[in-house]
Structure formats: structure tokens, C-alpha cells
């Protein structure tokens, strides 16, 4: 199913606020909500409902957003549903009087479809629930929608729907204990353990001894909850969001620092290539200063047999046992030949955009073809055979050919989710792509990023990152917005806007000294953003942003905002703390949000990515591998042999710890008791 965003003549209103701009309804539509509020207060129900009707009739796109609170935006229809639920009893009665007939007609249609074996149509059910939840059939329609969402594995959305029925329809004939129990099931299956515990306690207290019939079985609700908890614990299928957080040591096995020499080292940026790249920069005169070409570590990923790397589009695999190159797309020297290095500088190819991800036997890469840079070649998504490097498909042809890709792909089952923009404009979209053949399944336009132009006028795009949880794709734009997209319907559930620093136009990453443009220095290369899902919260920090945010997904609502350094990367989140790396390692208490420990860390490379090892963190810096123990507030260093590098990322495979720097891949043997994960 392909769902290209509407491209009608009415261009979406772009709010020229700082940062990513989602598609918002125009001011007239937003004012209708204010009218609804005003008329409701005056009990002028006909006018109030007319205002909402006007919203639904005139809204340009049900996917466009209206402001909610605390930086959140929701789709217009969601806001309408919230407005109806907020009506007093008198207002709800009036609404039924006006709309019961229309609601019943739609609901009958849904039932007829189901009777005809068409199954549940989520969009139709949603439409009934959004518009007519408070009418006579709204509760049963919502109950059906909740069940359908549960079946689709969208537990959080299901839990929300059941909650809406309870709140909006206290008069419903559906037993409250049944709705609450379903909600508890959704929360537990979804892994929102804390929310489940609180709800289960309330059910046991308020509905003690009441019978509940779920899936044909009738029993006391307490017994049902007990059996539910047991079944989830013993279930072989782990929920996406774990119900009980495993011990850190289980999730992240402790890794000892190496003690001996390297098992092998494979240098890709040797002195000859380094000199040639430097010479290429020098030959460009002033423009040559604009490069950090040799500072970036390649994107890297590993399976049990090989390390796969993507260095400015040169993709290769290294055998983990021997350190020998298993295959490569082209030799490393290709980067320094035929003016490729100069073109990378001239066209401001952004090193952050190269990515490599494993998906079973497939290797997905995001890279730009260097030989086509002069043709404004976009970043392409490619699927290779991991064992051989043979190309399976590429976005160079087919339904993906018009897209330029951004950030690492996220693979869920047979579907690839990735951000991209059309070659001809800058609107960012979330794409769902079939892994097997590279067919575009659907795209959802999300909005306009705030771009800056580099020294040569080329736009610099943000590099988004993606997370999946409970049927939602969370898009961290790293540009001032985090957006939740429901995977099943590929509709925007909500967007959260946050402040990003103002960048003067045309001065992105540049500064002026003595009247000359130079590349701005001082940042530690921590431009990447990161996000973690923990206990029902999405905790994220955008690259270059001086704050981290926690969004409670059950709301959604802003749980907390905490100032941190703009050059820090959010490295991990657990019950104890929030951890960031950058020029300082930071351990922030997860409850009080107080900074507990912040020793300096010599991170000065790009793509520095930590590796969690039990309660410790390993960070590969230009001064060696740091083992950081926040609990004991201790650090130790293994210098290693890649001391000429700027550091980079770490991979743990079997009994090897592998460092990937801006110049080499190096493997060290580590103590045998640490197992692969």
C-alpha cells in the first residue's frame, strides 16, 4: 500500500519557528477549537458542535496537527475526540441528540463489513470513535477498535482506547471491570510494567470479587490478573517493551578490558592515502580547510563472522577471526584517487549520513556514489548480500529512485523504516520499504526541517534516528521535533516540538575569523542524537541540543526536561541513571535528575559510540579504551595500539573487542568469561 502525502494546491502552512516544522492546520482551524471552548462554556451546544464540525469539514488534512500542550501537537481528529470527551454531561447528552443517528449508521456499516468477512477496518473504526465516541454506539465501537489494535500488537493504542471509553462513557453498559482488565492486559503485554502495577492494584481494590469474562473464560478478576501475570512471565515470546527489566548484567554482559596485544589490525586510512587526501585538500586552497574528511570513523556493524564497514561509500567486510578483508566494494585508495576526496569536500558530503545495518543475511547501507557527485547524486539505500557484498537491490532504480535517504534504517521483520526526502524538495518523510525487494510500501510526510547551508551553499540536513515500540515508529528528527507514527496506519499520532539553537542562515558549521570563513571547531563530534525507551518513556537527546527530554508515552506528556551539554551523546538509560558521553561522562540520577558524577573524557573523534558492559561503559577515545564504572566512580584505560586515531566505536563479538577508528579496525582478545551478545 502506497500512501503518498497529499500534494494539493493548498500548501501546508509552515510555521517559521525555530526547528523542524510539522504540518499544522491553519490558524482559522485552530481558532475553531477556541470557539468550541467558548461556546461550550456558554452551553451553546449547537454552535459548539458546529465549530467542531467545521474543523472536521474544513481541516485540510486529518494528518495535519494542532497544538495540544507542552509542545505536543496531535492530529486534528484526535483533538476533536479530546474536545468531545471533555464535554460535561449536559453537553454529551446534547451531542447524542444531534449525532446518534449518524453514528449508528457508520457503526452498522462497520459491523456489516465484519459480517461480510472483510475484517476490522481500522480507519473506519477510528472514524467512528474519533467523531462519535460519546454517542450511543461510541463505546462499543471503541471497544472493538481496542480489540483490533490488540490483535495488531498495538498495545499502547489499545490501552488508550479502553481508557477513553472509561473516561468518556461512564454510562456505558460495557462492564468497567472488563474494560479495565483489557487495559491491564494491553499495558502488561506492551511491557508498561509500572503502569500495569498501578492499574492492577486499583482493579483489585475497586473491583474485588467481580467476575470478568475474557476470551470465553469467566473468573474473579483477581484470579485473572494472577494468571495473566504468570502467563506473561512464562511466555516464550518476549514483548517489545520488556515487562520486567532484566538485570543490566543480563542485557549487557560485562566485558573485560583487553590485556594483551591486538589480535589483528586492518588499517584503511594508511599514511599514503592520508597524505593524498591532505594534499587534495591543500590543492583546494581555502576550501581545503572545510574538511574533516580523515577524522570520521566509518559506520560499523558486526555479526558473528564479520565486521561490516561503510567509509564514505566504500563498503567492506573484515573476517573477525583473521582480520582479513572478506570483500570490498572498491579498494580504500579509491577515496584518494580521481579527485574523489576533493569532490567530497567540494560537495560537502556529510559523513554522518553514511550508515550500515544488518538485517539477517542482508546488509543495508546508506551511501552516496562518489563517481556521481557532480550530478547531485542523492544518498542511496542499498541492500547487499552480507556474505559476499553482492548487490541485491538499490534505490538507484525503481520506486525509491526519487528519494535521498537520511540516517540509519530500522528493520522490523520484513519492513525497513527509514527517513528520506524527495530529491526535488526538503520535506522529510518516513518510508516503509519491503526488505526483500526494495519496494516502497508507503511514505508519510512529516514536515520541513530547519536547514542551514554550508560554506558552498549546499544544505546540511539533520540526521534523524528511529525507534520502534508497540506499533509506533518514533522519529527523532534531531532538528526540533520528535514524531510518533503509528506503523499499522502510518498516521501521525503526535509530535513533540523542542527548542533547537538558532543557526544563522548560510553559516552552518562555519565561522568567520579575520573576514575568512573557516570550519567551526571546538565541538567533539557528538552531533548524533540518541533515544532510549525505558519504562514507558521515550528519553532522547538531539545532536547539538543542550537538553534531554523524557516523554511519557502513556499520555503522551512531557515527563521531564533536563539541561545537558550540547556536545554530549545520550549513551544509556536504566533504573539507576541517565548516562551521557562527550567531553565529560555524565551520570545523572534517574529519579532526582541530579548530576552525580561527571569526570572529563578525552573524546575528540566523530562517531564515538560507547559500548555498555554490565554496569560499566567502554568508550574508545583517541587515548585508548576507557572503562567507566559510574557506580564506583572509577575509570581505567587500556591504551591499545590505535593511538594515532581519534577513537570511534566499539563492537563486541565472541571473545573479541573490536575498535573502529578513523584510521583502522583493530581486534583485541578479551577474557573468555565474557560472552557474546
Amino acid at each position, binding site marked *: 500500500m502506497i500512501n503518498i502525502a497529499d500534494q494539493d494546491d493548498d500548501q501546508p502552512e509552515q510555521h517559521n519557528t525555530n526547528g523542524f516544522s510539522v504540518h499544522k492546520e491553519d490558524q482559522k482551524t485552530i481558532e475553531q477549537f477556541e470557539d468550541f471552548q467558548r461556546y461550550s462554556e456558554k452551553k451553546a451546544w449547537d454552535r459548539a458542535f458546529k465549530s467542531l464540525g467545521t474543523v472536521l469539514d474544513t481541516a485540510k488534512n486529518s494528518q495535519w496537527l494542532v497544538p495540544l500542550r507542552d509542545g505536543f501537537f496531535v492530529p486534528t481528529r484526535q483533538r476533536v475526540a479530546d474536545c468531545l470527551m471533555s464535554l460535561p454531561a449536559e453537553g454529551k447528552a446534547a451531542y447524542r441528540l444531534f449525532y446518534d443517528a449518524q453514528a449508528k449508521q457508520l457503526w452498522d456499516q462497520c459491523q456489516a463489513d465484519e459480517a461480510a468477512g472483510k475484517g476490522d477496518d481500522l480507519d473506519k473504526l477510528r472514524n467512528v470513535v474519533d467523531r462519535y465516541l460519546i454517542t450511543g454506539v461510541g463505546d462499543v465501537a471503541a471497544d472493538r477498535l481496542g480489540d483490533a489494535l490488540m490483535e495488531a500488537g498495538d498495545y499502547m493504542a489499545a490501552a488508550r482506547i479502553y481508557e477513553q471509553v472509561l473516561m468518556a462513557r461512564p454510562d456505558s453498559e460495557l462492564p468497567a471491570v472488563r474494560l479495565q482488565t483489557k487495559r491491564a492486559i494491553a499495558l502488561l503485554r506492551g511491557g508498561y510494567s509500572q503502569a500495569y502495577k498501578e492499574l492492577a492494584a486499583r482493579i483489585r481494590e475497586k473491583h474485588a470479587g467481580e467476575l470478568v469474562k475474557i476470551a470465553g473464560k469467566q473468573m474473579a478478576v483477581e484470579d485473572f490478573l494472577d494468571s495473566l501475570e504468570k502467563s506473561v512471565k512464562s511466555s516464550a515470546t518476549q514483548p517489545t517493551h520488556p515487562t520486567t527489566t532484566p538485570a543490566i548484567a543480563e542485557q549487557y554482559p560485562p566485558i573485560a578490558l583487553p590485556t594483551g596485544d591486538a589480535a589483528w589490525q586492518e588499517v584503511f586510512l594508511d599514511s599514503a592515502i592520508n597524505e593524498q587526501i591532505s594534499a587534495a585538500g591543500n590543492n583546494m586552497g581555502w576550501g581545503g580547510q572545510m574538511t574533516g574528511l580523515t577524522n570520521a570513523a566509518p559506520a560499523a556493524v558486526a555479526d558473528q563472522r564479520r565486521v561490516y564497514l561503510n567509509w564514505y561509500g566504500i563498503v567492506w567486510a573484515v573476517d573477525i577471526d583473521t582480520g582479513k578483508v572478506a570483500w570490498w566494494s572498491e579498494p580504500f585508495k579509491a577515496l584518494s584517487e580521481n579527485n574523489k576526496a576533493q569532490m567530497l569536500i567540494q560537495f560537502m558530503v556529510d559523513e554522518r549520513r553514511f550508515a550500515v545495518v544488518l538485517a539477517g543475511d542482508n546488509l543495508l547501507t546508506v551511501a552516496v556514489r562518489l563517481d556521481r557527485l557532480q550530478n547531485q547524486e542523492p544518498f542511496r539505500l542499498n541492500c547487499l548480500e552480507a556474505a559476499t557484498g553482492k548487490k541485491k537491490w538499490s534505490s538507484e532504480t525503481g520506486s525509491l529512485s526519487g528519494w535521498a535517504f537520511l540516517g540509519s534504517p530500522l528493520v522490523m521483520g520484513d519492513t525497513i523504516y527509514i527517513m528520506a526526502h524527495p530529491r526535488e524538495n526538503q520535506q522529510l518523510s518516513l518510508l516503509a520499504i519491503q526488505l526483500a525487494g526494495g519496494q516502497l510500501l508507503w511514505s508519510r510526510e512529516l514536515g520541513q526541517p530547519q536547514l542551514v547551508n554550508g560554506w558552498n551553499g549546499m544544505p546540511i540536513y539533520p540526521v534523524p534516528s528511529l525507534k520502534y515500540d508497540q506499533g509506533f515508529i518514533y522519529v527523532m528528527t534531531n532538528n526540533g521535533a520528535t514524531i510518533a507514527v503509528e506503523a499499522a496506519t502510518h498516521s501521525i499520532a503526535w509530535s513533540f516540538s523542542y527548542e533547537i539553537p538558532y543557526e544563522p542562515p548560510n*553559516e552552518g558549521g562555519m565561522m568567520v575569523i*579575520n573576514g*575568512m570563513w573557516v570550519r567551526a571547531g571546538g565541538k567533539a563530534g557528538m552531533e548524533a542524537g540518541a533515544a532510549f525507551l525505558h519504562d514507558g518513556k521515550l528519553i532522547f537527546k538531539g545532536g547539538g541540543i543542550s537538553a534531554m527530554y523524557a516523554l511519557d508515552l502513556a499520555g503522551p506528556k512531557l515527563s521531564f526536561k533536563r539541561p545537558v551539554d550540547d556536545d554530549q551523546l545520550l549513551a544509556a538509560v536504566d533504573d539507576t541513571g541517565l548516562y551521557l558521553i562527550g567531553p565529560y561522562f555524565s551520570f545523572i540520577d534517574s529519579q532526582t535528575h541530579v*548530576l552525580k558524577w561527571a569526570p572529563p573524557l578525552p573524546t575528540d573523534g566523530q562517531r564515538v559510540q560507547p559500548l555498555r558492559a554490565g554496569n560499566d561503559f567502554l568508550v574508545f577515545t583517541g587515548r585508548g579504551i576507557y572503562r567507566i564504572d559510574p557506580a564506583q566512580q572509577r575509570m581505567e584505560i587500556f591504551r591499545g595500539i590505535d593511538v594515532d586515531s581519534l577513537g570511534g566505536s566499539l563492537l563486541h563479538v565472541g571473545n573479541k573487542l573490536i575498535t573502529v577508528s578513523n584510521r583502522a579496525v583493530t581486534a583485541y582478545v578479551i577474557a573468555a568469561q565474557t560472552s557474546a551478545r
Partner: protein
Amino acid sequence: MNRCYLTLSSTLVMVALIAPIGRAQSAEGQGITVSGSAEVKIKPDQVVIGAVVSGEAELTNDAMVKYRDAKKRAIAAIEALKLPNVKVEASGVSVSQAMDPNAAQMMMQGRPANVGKSKVRAMENLKITISEADKSTNDALMDVIMKLIDAGRDAGLQIGSAMPSNWYQYQMEMNNGGGNQDIPQFKVTDVAAHRDEAYKKAMDDAKSKAQHLADLAGVKLGRIISIHASTGKNGNANRPIYPWMYNGGDEPAEQEDLTSGTLEEIPLKVTLSVQYEIEK
């Protein structure tokens, strides 16, 4: 008296011409003035490494935690080396407004800059001192210095001046007298003892020259009338020394800084201008 003056003046002018090894002249026609010099080479007995520990953040408490942990870690790292004769001294913490250096440079150029949110910076200068350095061999001393620099940098200390991030920044630093990238400073701490030795040698040198001139002139060398001294690495710290040496009074303040950026024997040069009376 006038005649004597004329005679002596003529004689001294002649002697000065034939005795280039020493400088002799009459001082207001009352004696013989010579220059005596000496140089002693001293092995530095102290090494000083400057470092900065700081913490910067939007929240003052965060800045202080960063500063505190940076200092704690740096001192612990240096102490863990268990090096004898190594001491870390802190100069006291200062708390100030912090500003992104890139933004500062942009503003200095009159361009719009992303100043960002106001930040607080807690900063303290540390002085890492190795004493009794003169009792170590050069190799052993350099080994200690390298260990200290590495341990400090591993612990996140800024040792030496911050590196410029681009060519223009570097150029500006050089134009403004910066660019000294020496990390350890090698010092002689007890200058006075070595200076006395140098003075004595310089006095001997001066007396020898004066006596030689007197002999050539056929006069008898009398008492010292005045002394001016120049001391230091280049012998250019000029000051009157006579009142102290011969008439008592306060010793001149010790301002000489026998410091070098390289591990070598540091020369202490003394030049004395001594005026002798001619006995009649």
C-alpha cells in the same frame, strides 16, 4: 687635583685602547671602572607543569560537579603514579560566565552568533611540581614528566595551552604573542646561592681586570667606589648592588626567573660594573 684628573684620564683612555679584554673608563675622573662577568650553569631542580581543571554547564551545580570530579580524578591519577617529589598545588577556584569560543569569535567579527544559553564555568589552575629534579638523570626526569602529562591528559586535564581549532585561530594566537607550546617549565629555585657564586667569580674577574689596568697605568688600585650588577639568564637585570654589599641595607628583591622550556643546564650570567678608586 685637576691636574691629576687630566693625567689619569689620558692614561685610562690609552689603556682602554690597548686592553680590549676589559672595559675601563674613568668615572668622573675618580678611579678605574671595569666590567667583570661570570656565568654559572645550573641544573634545574624543579619542574613545573601548568594545568587547568574546569567544569562548564548551564546549571551551576552541574558545572561544580564537573569541576569537582575533574579535579578529584586528576589529582587521584597523579597520586596513583606514586612518584616521589611530585606535588599538586591548586590556585583556587573561580566561577565565571562561560561563552562558546566560536560564538565569541563570531561576535568579535561583528557577525551574528549562536550565543546559546548562559553557562557557568568553574575553573582552577593547577601547578604540578617535581622537586629535586637536579638529583635525577635527564632520562629519568623526562620519564616522570611524560608519565605526569599522560596521566593528567588521561584524566581530562588541560595541560599546556589549548590547541587552536583552525589555521586562523592559530595565526591570531601567534600574532598576539601566543604560540608557546612548552608544557613543562624547568626552574632553578635557589637562585641566590648560585648568584653569590657568580658574583664572586665576576668580582674576581673585575678585580683582575682593574688590577691589570692599574698596573699598566702605573697606579695603585684603591677601594671600590661603586658596583652595578646585571644578572639573569642573559645578564640583563640591571640594578645597583653597592649599597647592599658594602654599606648594608635591604637585599635587593629577587626577581630573577631562571626558567627554561627545555631540559638543560640554565646559565646564570652576572655582569658587574665595578669602580675602583686610585690610591694617591
